[in-house]
């Protein structure tokens, strides 16, 4: 259960190796969470030692983002491990190389499945559980890449655009259920996944994203930007004329 000061007992991290996801989970553990389920393909491996040092128990679950048929069972397995799901962090995804996707449509479609359809099946399974519980929060890691899709990474960006729209619709469908969705829109975050990409303006660290998520969960936010300055920046970006937008670098 969430307590009156915003601490929770359990966290399910979908994408158990995601650096941003782990930073969010660590933050929630520092704030009092005691049970963490890390769900990743083939299991999440060894949990970061800091979780144990902070007094939290971690569990590992096999979770294949592409295998939508298994997602309901994954959620059930997490419930069996820790009981009510207080916060679910939906953080899995692949970034990939746009040029490779354009040369290999099948690879592009697979990436889209991980970055979009996988979130649809697992998101709906999580929402069903949260609705039944009458409480809980689903944190969806969207991206500014989905706010306005760019030529430079439109396979990834379009999947994030779909995910962002899905998450907003899911949030509306959960209104009045006691459960909620928090859409998180980070900009460039320096992680293993983004190692091959040049940093964009206003970069954030996983820790900063985690802080924004924690703050968003404490209040009544439906969307958080990390860093916050990206919200006005992208409000402007959306107005940019198409010929100019097309020529934008990465």
């Amino acid at each position: 259960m969430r307590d009156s000061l915003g601490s929770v007992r359990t966290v399910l991290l979908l994408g158990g190796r995601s650096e941003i996801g782990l930073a969010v989970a660590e933050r929630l553990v520092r704030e009092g969470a005691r049970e963490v389920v890390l769900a990743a393909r083939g299991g999440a491996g060894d949990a970061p030692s800091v979780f144990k040092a902070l007094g939290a128990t971690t569990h590992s679950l096999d979770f294949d983002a592409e295998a939508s048929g298994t997602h309901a069972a994954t959620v059930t397995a997490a419930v069996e491990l820790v009981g009510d799901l207080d916060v679910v962090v939906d953080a899995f995804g692949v970034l990939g190389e746009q040029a490779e996707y354009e040369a290999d449509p099948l690879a592009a479609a697979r990436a889209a499945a991980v970055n979009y359809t996988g979130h649809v099946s697992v998101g709906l399974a999580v929402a069903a559980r949260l609705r039944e519980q009458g409480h809980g929060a689903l944190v969806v890691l969207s991206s500014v890449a989905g706010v306005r899709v760019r030529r430079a990474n439109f396979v990834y960006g379009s999947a994030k655009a779909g995910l962002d729209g899905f998450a907003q619709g899911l949030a509306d469908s959960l209104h009045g259920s006691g459960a909620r969705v928090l859409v998180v829109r980070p900009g460039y975050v320096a992680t293993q996944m983004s190692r091959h990409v040049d940093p964009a303006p206003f970069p954030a660290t996983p820790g900063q994203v985690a802080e924004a998520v924690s703050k968003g969960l404490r209040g009544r936010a439906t969307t958080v930007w990390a860093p916050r300055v990206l919200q006005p920046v992208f409000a402007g970006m959306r107005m940019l004329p198409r010929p100019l937008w097309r020529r934008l670098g990465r």
Partner: protein
Amino acid sequence: MSRRTLLSGWGRTAPTVAHVTHPRSAEQVAEALSQAGPRGVLARGLGRSYGDAAQAAGGLVLDCTELTGRPRLDTERQEVTAPAGTSMERIIAHLLRRGHFVSVTPGTSHVTLGGAIAADVHGKNHHADSSIGAHVRSLTLITPDGRTRRLGPDHGDTELFWATVGGMGLTGVITEATVGVHPVETAYARVDTDRTRDLDSTLELMARTDHAYRYTVCWVDLLAKGASLGRGVLTRAHHARLTDLPLPQRRDPLRHRTATSMTVPPGVPSGMLNRYTVGAFNTAYYNAAPHRRRGQAQPIGGFLHPLDAVSGWNRVYGRSGFVQYQFVVPLGAEDTLRAVVEGLSRAGAPSFLAVLKRMGESTPGPLSFPRPGWTLALDLPADLPGLARLLNGFDERVIEAGGRLYLAKDSRARPETVHAMYPGLAAWRATRARADPDGVLISDLARRLELA
């Protein structure tokens, strides 16, 4: 028919959704219990528990406020019997007209009789009369198996009786209760007031004089610093006798006044109560109190339930709500009390409702809060930065001193903290398991604190 409803406690934090029904009879309670789904069931009264004690996320909540009826006063046995959903306010109004008063009432009269017993509430007379559990002659409890049990301290399943007193609604649903009353000559309190200059003089004056009064309570200025740290306004009272009243009031001495004089509008922004506004209020309140006044006749409702005059006062904390922190430490653990008062003052924690009391005898209820000692209750805005850490630190001190937190008010403690504070928990669990082997009765509090 049940409806999905968002429920929260009086502090308005951490709401959850449950199906809510309104049983009107014991039969309907039994029927509802038999229909509990996998997310369990819980009885709820007037929602004055500050935290999550009367919520059951995803489950079935029995709103028992329609489980009412006329209280039945038995003057020979000095007791009153009423359905569990009857409010204390209604019972008091009924009794006062007939020259009687309840043995124990908490700081608000907007609680149900069943809820009062489930929380084993205490009042300003705890040092003299203990908590309500000490005055329950018998109660009717419906357990999830559909059985109706008559329980009392000296009949029926006494173990289950004491597990129910202070049991936070987790042993069954109370549908009716009989509690002791006492005769009064008037509907007034005869109040003595003293201002104290610091914590030492507050404690000293309370310790020295409260045996001489039926009711005592001290408001403490938690924002006062330095030499004024812990200064307060101590009020002590007896039920007024007819001769204590000024002549105009003697004509109708049992007239009960309950008027609500103010209402807090909805939509008050958060952050209104900060160290500056509350500091100004506290100073003004302190300075407005008389240094020393004796024998003031005051309507008993106004004395015992001052906040009932302000409808929806919980809204002054805005949307983020507030937490109430109440602990008790044994007599002799004044250092712990001082550490908490100093910690709050140092943190500039804006609490304008801080109430200090000396407690007397406890009841045998394993989850009952009161025990002999000092109890301090205070309100704090839930969005105060660093509040979790501050209160967790206080919890440690309270455990060290052998004290405990009040479950009807808690909304943020950790399970291991509460387990360390209630050594009777294992025994309580065993009794509860007999009454509810399938764990049908559940609350958010029970889930959060891993009670059941």
